[in-house]
């Protein structure tokens, strides 16, 4: 184990997922998935459509009950102490935009109250400044551009200074320039902040740029895990995208061992 890996392991675990399963009748959407996210670490959850990424994220967010297995957020059992566990997390997803009939500042104030944020007025002002939203504070979220909505979603996700941040394709609807700025901001959060990030994306370039570690999910199982920069070479692929395609098309029985 090198020094970087040792340091990473020494950081506290902010998300521990153990033997997580979700079945819909005969269909196993998530099948005995186990992984962890450490403080100041960005972990990419990759996989083709229908692999179980969003299902996994929904279970971590407490809006979908697992069939079996456990989730601990910053050491708190989600099943037993839902409110305490979710107070330590937050999320942004392209499919969960904030209510469009409220302004940016109103949405931040409301969710700040729901998350029980202290000194809320000051926190909202800080986030409006940090995410370059001061000029849009009184604009209704429904009329914002995709890039602006993503910034608002990220500001909302940082309201409670979460120990665990879940980002489900946060840059999916952004142009390359806006996506690059969003990535830099998120990377900065992980570096200087006190949180771990679980990130899903279909953009392998983005994953290589941002993630410290990736997990390849296919048909509900983790097929592969490791450093996105060295994984392709280790598995005989030229790029992460090539490795992704190989894995996505491979039958489960032939997939490489974790």
């Amino acid at each position, binding site marked *: 184990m090198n020094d970087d890996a040792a340091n990473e392991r020494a950081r506290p675990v902010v998300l521990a997922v153990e033997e997580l399963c979700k079945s819909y009748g005969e269909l196993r959407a998530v099948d005995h998935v186990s992984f962890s996210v450490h403080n100041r670490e960005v972990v990419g959850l990759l996989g083709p459509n229908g692999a179980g990424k969003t299902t996994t994220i929904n279970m971590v967010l407490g809006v979908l009950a697992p069939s079996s297995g456990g989730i601990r957020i910053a050491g708190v059992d989600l099943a037993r102490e839902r409110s305490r566990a979710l107070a330590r997390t937050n999320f942004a997803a392209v499919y969960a935009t904030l209510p469009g009939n409220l302004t940016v500042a109103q949405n931040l104030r409301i969710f700040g109250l*729901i998350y029980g944020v202290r000194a809320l007025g000051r926190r909202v002002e800080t986030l409006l400044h940090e995410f370059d939203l001061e000029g849009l504070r009184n604009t209704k979220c429904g009329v914002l551009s995709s890039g602006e909505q993503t910034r608002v979603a990220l500001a909302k996700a940082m309201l409670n200074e979460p120990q665990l941040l879940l980002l489900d394709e946060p840059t999916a609807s952004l142009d390359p320039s806006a996506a690059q700025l969003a990535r830099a901001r998120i990377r900065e959060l992980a570096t200087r902040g006190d949180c771990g990030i679980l990130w899903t994306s279909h953009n392998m370039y983005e994953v290589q740029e941002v993630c410290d570690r990736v997990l390849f999910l296919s048909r509900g199982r983790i097929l592969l895990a490791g450093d996105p920069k060295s994984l392709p070479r280790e598995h005989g692929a030229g790029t992460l995208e090539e490795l992704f395609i190989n894995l996505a098309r491979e039958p489960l029985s032939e997939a490489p061992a974790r």
Partner: protein
Amino acid sequence: MRLKPIAGIVLRQFYLMRGSPVRVLPMFAWVAIDIIVWGFMTRYLNSVSSGGINFVASLLGAVLLWDFFTRIMQGVTVGFLEDVWSRNFLNLFATPLAISEYLTGLVATSIATSLIGLVVMLVLATTVFGLSFFALGVMLIPFLLVLFLFGIALGILASAMVLRLGPASEWMVWPLPALLSPFAGVFYPLTTLPAWMQAVAHLLPPSYVFQDMRAIVTGQPYQLQGLWWGLALAVLELLLCAQLFVRVHRYAVRTGLLARYTAESIG
């Protein structure tokens, strides 16, 4: 239960109303129209009836109380539907917000909005049509309390229906008060109803309110025991409806209904 998350739910509804006259108008417009229509109707009935019955007190008073109940129910339901319409479930339920805090927030909003409607109705009915509502005396308090509790219960039941059956089931929710009104004996004694309808009426808390209200305005003795029974029923039904909502929410979390709740995916 924590106050901050409840305040968040109330603040959301306040912002929506403050920024939208079309949300504020229905709080008093429809009840005002109801009072005006029934006010003139009772005036006309008073002028053609020979029995000396005061229809203003019995009919207009009943309309006012029924509209109060309807506004309470709709206050809870509309608050919930605002989250359906803006696809806000994932944002809301992936937070530390407890179901009891969410429902309490909706109830607090409903109290504020229905009180506005009640004041408008009282002012109109008293000043324009001479309804002496306070002639009901101290009994007005338990009457309003029973209708308030049952309105909350029905609002939570309606919200549970929409959560379970999908956004399209919204059309089934609006006529719920109208569906109950024939059984509740809003305008006539329960003895007018056939036996099976009377049996249903006895399970509805408002039927005890309207029975006693008619007795008071016609100067007949009223049965306090019946009103107590109505109050107990309202509390019981409120608890049952809240429990039903919690169960539906659990079902939605277990089956994935909540995570993919949109108009397109269900209903």
